[in-house]
């Protein structure tokens, strides 16, 4: 397609031909084994991407030394016994002409003792609170020499394992980064202090790897262009360092940003503009001759193409974009942009990883389960009736239809989307709509018979006599009937407010300070309404996930329209006042013109109960938030599974 000319143009790094400009960036997936070996699950996942034409894939941070292991099920090349399984992976990718890249990492001060069994090592004894606060041991010069040898040995293994290129992980606060940065390197010997001294560690590692691999093997460097901490590295520093490595024969640079202390700048949430790191890539490119790989919320091929067209970079790392939809490139080539299951930067994947869990994806339930989730045509075609057009209902409907079942979907509102309809409101949250948008498109494209504005009753379902009934009836706002004044006209709920069904006042009390409450409060603030958010917990936004918290909480704090009160409950509500109680002390808030409950969600289960009691149609199943309100990732997964089990 002429529109994506730059993206589809082959490129060369050293003598290596890369078939197009797309690249899947590194992602620790936690799908290795305890020793750092590649598993079949890993290979299946990568093959699915390689099949769909991605030009090159960087696997993930791959530890070179058990002391510097970052995660429990991370890949490693720390021992010769790792080579065999990595070889199976690179062989599989090469079958599709995809370039395989490994990223050699030593986590340094970011390593956690509970994962490694060792005390972390670092240039200086400065602990990293984000990864557990383990006090690192300051490396001796002998440690440094040994680390250099380990890097070289890992590079040799990488070559023997068939990796076409090797990236040195010099970003995200890991060991290379921490030696370069005055924020973490306080040494007074030849490895710290002056610029030259801070360059030394990285230069020696690079030289050792270069000596090991020889001049013809491409070596790159992933750099944190800006650490985004006071006293840390900025673009001026980092590009000077890369320029220095370029002089020593570095072949490419991969431009990332942030360290653990500024983790929100590593993996950008939906609050960031797409391609928000591009100015940094361009800034790097301004002083360099070697190819520059850009990264960071490049979830849309149109943004990627634009970046290439504007010479802001030479390659685009699209990590989560390929995680969410392995076919993003092939669909783009075919011009089927609306059929792309777009990563919406919800950051669930990274929250899972930081939580020591296997990485999955909200919008793509098949990520990491390629084999078991492969769609198989239904053996017996059945009629399937789905009630509820939210994420779970749409997922089940489209999957069942794609497998050949005859599916009808009933939604009581005039629009599909369910909870995403309100959850995607407000300037920082609209990307959530992508999860619904894709499913709406897919439901229609899969031939599901969609009925909008039809609320199903037991009688309706019985009359339709489907072979299988799926109830994905979702939730409604929980309104505690015991709060005096709950029926006053100024009382509303998050859904009504976000959907624009309640007139927005000027001074609101929002009850609930978790995700839904904060969504509501920011929405009200955007519309010029002051609000007081109360929550009986000790903290707001506990359900946001680590990285989102780093973005959302400071924003709430800085928002002049929003006041937060913790450990606070609502006692009663009057016509223009509300009484709240904090640790036994009551207080009346005056001059309120809205009270919005964002306390929680109430499961809508009556149809399931009625069907069970009635007993005529036995083959029914309740799925999604209606069972128990959870994160979208679980709800979509449940729909995906149910659709495969019919």
């Amino acid at each position, binding site marked *: 397609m002429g529109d994506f000319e730059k993206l589809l143009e082959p490129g060369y790094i050293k003598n290596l031909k890369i078939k197009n400009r797309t690249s899947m960036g590194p992602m620790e997936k936690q799908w290795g084994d305890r020793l750092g070996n590649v598993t079949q699950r890993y290979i299946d996942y990568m093959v699915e991407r390689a099949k769909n034409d991605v030009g090159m894939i960087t696997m993930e941070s791959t530890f070179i030394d058990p002391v510097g292991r970052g995660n429990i099920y991370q890949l490693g090349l720390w021992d010769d016994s790792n080579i065999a399984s990595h070889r199976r992976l690179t062989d599989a990718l090469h079958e599709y002409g995809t370039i395989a890249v490994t990223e050699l990492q030593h986590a340094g001060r970011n390593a956690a003792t509970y994962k490694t069994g060792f005390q972390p090592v670092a240039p200086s004894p400065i602990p990293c609170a984000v990864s557990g606060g383990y006090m690192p041991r300051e490396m001796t010069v002998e440690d440094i020499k040994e680390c250099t040898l380990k890097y070289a040995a890992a590079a040799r293994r990488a070559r023997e394992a068939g990796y076409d290129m090797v990236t040195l992980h010099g970003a995200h606060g890991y060991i290379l980064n921490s030696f370069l940065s005055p924020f973490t390197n306080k040494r007074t010997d030849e490895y710290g202090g002056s610029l030259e001294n801070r360059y030394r560690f990285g230069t020696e590692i690079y030289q050792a790897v270069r000596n090991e691999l020889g001049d013809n093997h491409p070596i790159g460097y992933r750099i944190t262009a800006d650490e985004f901490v006071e006293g840390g590295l900025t673009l001026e520093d980092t590009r000077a360092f890369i320029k220095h490595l370029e002089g020593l024969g570095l072949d490419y640079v991969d431009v990332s940003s942030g360290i653990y202390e500024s983790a929100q700048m590593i993996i950008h949430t939906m609050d960031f*503009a*797409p391609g928000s790191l591009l100015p940094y890539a361009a800034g790097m490119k301004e002083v360099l001759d070697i190819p520059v790989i850009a990264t960071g919320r490049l979830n*849309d091929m*149109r943004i990627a193409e634009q970046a290439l067209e*504007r010479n802001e970079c030479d390659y685009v790392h699209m990590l989560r974009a390929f995680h969410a939809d392995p076919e993003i490139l092939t669909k783009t080539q075919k011009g089927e942009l*609306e059929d792309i299951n777009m990563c919406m930067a919800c950051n669930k994947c990274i929250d899972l990883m930081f939580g020591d869990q296997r990485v999955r994806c909200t919008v793509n339930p098949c990520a990491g389960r390629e084999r078991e989730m492969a769609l198989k045509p239904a053996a017996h075609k059945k009629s399937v009736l789905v009630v509820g057009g939210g994420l779970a209902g749409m997922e089940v409907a489209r999957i069942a239809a794609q497998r050949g079942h005859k599916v009808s979907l009933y939604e009581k509102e005039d629009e599909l989307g369910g909870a995403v309809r309100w959850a995607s409101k407000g300037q920082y949250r609209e990307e959530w709509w992508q999860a619904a*948008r894709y499913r709406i498109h897919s439901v229609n494209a899969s031939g599901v018979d969609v009925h909008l504005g039809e609320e199903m009753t037991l009688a309706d379902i019985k009359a339709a006599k489907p072979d299988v009934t799926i109830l994905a009836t979702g939730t409604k706002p929980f309104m505690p009937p015991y709060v005096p004044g709950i029926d006053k006209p100024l009382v509303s709920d998050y859904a009504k407010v976000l959907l624009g069904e309640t007139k927005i006042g000027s001074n609101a009390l929002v009850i609930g300070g978790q995700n839904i409450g904060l969504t509501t409060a920011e929405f009200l603030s955007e*519309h*010029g309404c002051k609000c007081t958010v109360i929550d009986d917990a000790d903290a707001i936004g506990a359900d946001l996930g680590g990285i989102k918290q780093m973005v959302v909480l400071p924003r709430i704090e800085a928002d002049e329209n929003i006041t937060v009160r913790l450990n606070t409950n609502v006692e009663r509500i009057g016509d223009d006042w509300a009484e709240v109680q904090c640790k036994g002390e009551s207080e009346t808030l005056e001059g309120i013109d809205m009270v919005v409950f964002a306390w929680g969600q109430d499961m809508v289960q009556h149809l399931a109960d009625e069907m069970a009691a009635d007993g005529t149609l036995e083959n029914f199943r309740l799925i999604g938030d209606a069972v128990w309100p959870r994160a979208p990732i679980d709800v979509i997964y449940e729909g995906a599974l149910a659709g495969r089990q019919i």
Partner: protein
Amino acid sequence: MAGANDVWLLLAAAEGRLGAYADGLMREGRRLADALEGDLTAILLGPDIDRLEETLGKFGVNRLYHQRDDSLADYHPEIYTALLGGLVQRHQPRLFLSLAASLGSDLMPRLAAAIGAPLVMNCSNIETAAEIEFTKRVQSGRLQATFTASGGGTNLATLDPEYLPDPEDAKRDTVTQRHEVTVELATIPTRLEITSRQKADPKTVDIREAEIVVALGNGVGAKENIAAYEQFAELIGAALGGSRPVIDSGVLPHKRQIGQTGRSISARLAILCGISGSEYFTKGIDQVATKIAINSDRDAAIFKHADLGIVADVNTLIANLTAHLKNGAKRGGGA
């Protein structure tokens, strides 16, 4: 007085306003004039523009040469060459710049030949080192070449609008001195005769290039309503574009999406219908000269960007406006 380190700009105007990218051109001109320690002079040919000196002053333009003549509104190569050639030769600025649009690309080589000055077309950057260095893309964009010109005197260059700085508020308070130029146009010999001009078909023109755009947002409502906008657009000769939700719902093709993940438009007039004004959208309308926003929500952010904001139901308003304009046309009025 004009000096040998001055930078001159050729501005273009259309319908009583400075043309697209004029602000970027002036900002670049000012940067270069500062670097050369010279003054910035702008030239405008054709009808006058309201509060022109005030605008130019904000961009740091020291001097304006203007020939107020309606016949100059339409570019004629030979007349422009003669007129500008005379001016440039008389004042000998260091740099003479124009946009690399149709006019500049046609005019500047003529001017260069006429006054014997070196010219680099379609520059992406100009820097003033020991010499002035002109950088442009060559090999159809694969490489860039940096040029220097032989000899002193005036250097000519056209600037690639893609590379001009992004618009931002202009804050200088230079007093722009106006000089009216009065060259007797009738005495300029011409060998070319422009017999007609044809407008592009708004239905097929690239949305980035369309002169008039009707942009549809979510507020336009159901797909069935689109026909009325097609009719309206046709009536006023506008191209249809849309915000992301409208594109996502398949009403218009991807190529018609305006905004950060779509295209940037540079229309003279854009009518924004039922668009809330998200930053992702407004990034695509920075370069639009006149913006009319219609929205039923009086607090909609889009009004902050609009020259004229109307709080109304957009479907009704557009239907009424279509009828009104049609009647007007019948009455024999203008638009």
